């Protein structure tokens, strides 16, 4: 980031916003999470690959603000290598904290990230049945 540029967000948020991790589609995902809607201006799609009850890969696509993109990026980083049970324990606060905090008005984006993850895990279970 250029020096002396002030932003609404923490350095960590801006870093993930500039270089989001795990962006894109996934071939044959084991679970797909889809949350948000155009009315509120945030839509997240999160894809997971599961092996032996462990999330081995995660990817996302997001339509939304800086915080929405950064939280999507962070949550996909956080779940990789975690068991399903561990992943289910990732809270929106944990995502926000990992990003060095979010402005209060943007906390709903971290909620969306948590929901996207849970929705992907739900989908994984539904597909296994």
């Amino acid at each position: 980031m250029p020096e002396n540029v002030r932003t609404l967000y923490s350095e960590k948020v801006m870093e993930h916003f500039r270089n989001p991790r795990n962006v894109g589609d996934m071939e044959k995902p084991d679970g797909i999470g889809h949350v948000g809607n155009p009315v509120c201006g945030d839509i997240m799609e999160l894809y997971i690959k599961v092996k032996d009850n462990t999330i081995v890969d995660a990817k996302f696509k997001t339509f939304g603000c800086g915080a929405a993109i950064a939280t999507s990026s962070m949550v996909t980083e956080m779940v990789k290598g975690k068991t399903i049970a561990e992943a289910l324990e990732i809270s929106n606060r944990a995502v926000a904290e990992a990003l060095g905090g979010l402005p209060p008005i943007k906390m709903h984006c971290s909620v969306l990230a948590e929901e996207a993850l849970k929705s992907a895990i739900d989908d994984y279970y539904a597909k296994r049945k």
Partner: protein
Amino acid sequence: MKPIYLDYAATTPTHPEVVKAMLPYFTEVFGNPSSIYSYGLEAKEALEQARAKVANLIGARDEEIVFTSGGTEADNSALKGVALANESKGNHIITSSIEHHAVSETCKFLEKRGFQVTYLPVDEYGLVNPEDVKKAITVKTILISIMYGNNEVGTIEPIAEIGQIAKEAKVYFHTDAVQTVGHIPIAVDELGVNLLSMSAHKLYGPKGVGALYVRKGTRLVPFLHGGDQEKKRRATTENVPGIVGFGAAAEMAQREMGQEAQRLTHLRDRLIKGILERIEDVRLNGHPKRRLPNNVNISFNFVEGESILLNLDLEGICVSTGSACTSASLEPSAVLLAMGLSHELAHGSLRMTLGKWTTEEEINQVLEVLPRVIAKLRAMSPLMKK
């Protein structure tokens, strides 16, 4: 490198010439204009000179200008002032669905106090139909308030036509001309308005000062009660340096407006054309021709405005968006929704407003950076069809 500033509709830098004109009034000529010794008289003289310059800019008489703390106060005072002074005549107000919050929120407040407000629709370009105004008038109508140039999409409303209708119906007519004054020529008599709001910091004057034009004979209650300042219409010791700055800015605008509007219109159209040519799935918001010389507002399909804004900021370009991801309601621009845009397109809108220091090179820079930013965001958008 200094960032490229493309948000002149939000605020303009105070012109160095204006600052220079203001400076003596903080220190040497510090007197209270109500005092009758030399310090006071000198300040009073400066105040009246500034009033003449502002009046001149809109073709008004000096005594019809009441200085305020800004555009918001001018709007509030016009609406509440007319409403309270004319309650015995009626309780109906007509406005549009694309007004600045300073008007729309004041209308909502008045509704809670028993006034009835009609919010007229606009077409896809953001234009109010004068016929709709005519049809909405009842025996109870006491005020029509329609903005002149829209702050978000730049559409210029048919004010003179509405003014004619208001005149025939003998209803007071207010226009919020905050984005228009100093940018395109204005003559209050041609417009047929009784009240017109202005703000200094939108035309290279200082923040914290504006004015309401009040046509002679218009009945409204004082904005502030107290002393005799502003012919008892607005008490409080006058903001002399600010008002002097407003006067200097008005004088400068009058001198440079014609040429500057032409220059900006050229740059504006180049920017619009450049974006439409370089990027697919975009939509120009607002009227293609009836538009403020400095306003560009475009929606980009499949991407959200704040993320475009942040990316441009990282590239040293400052713009604004109609996506209100920072507002508690999460609702995007009411103006864009009133024009019939989907939520998705309203969230994907970007406003770029040009000004005195905008150059051709800056426009070229935006046209180089923007397609890259949009492509990057679209690549990560779940709305983008493969």
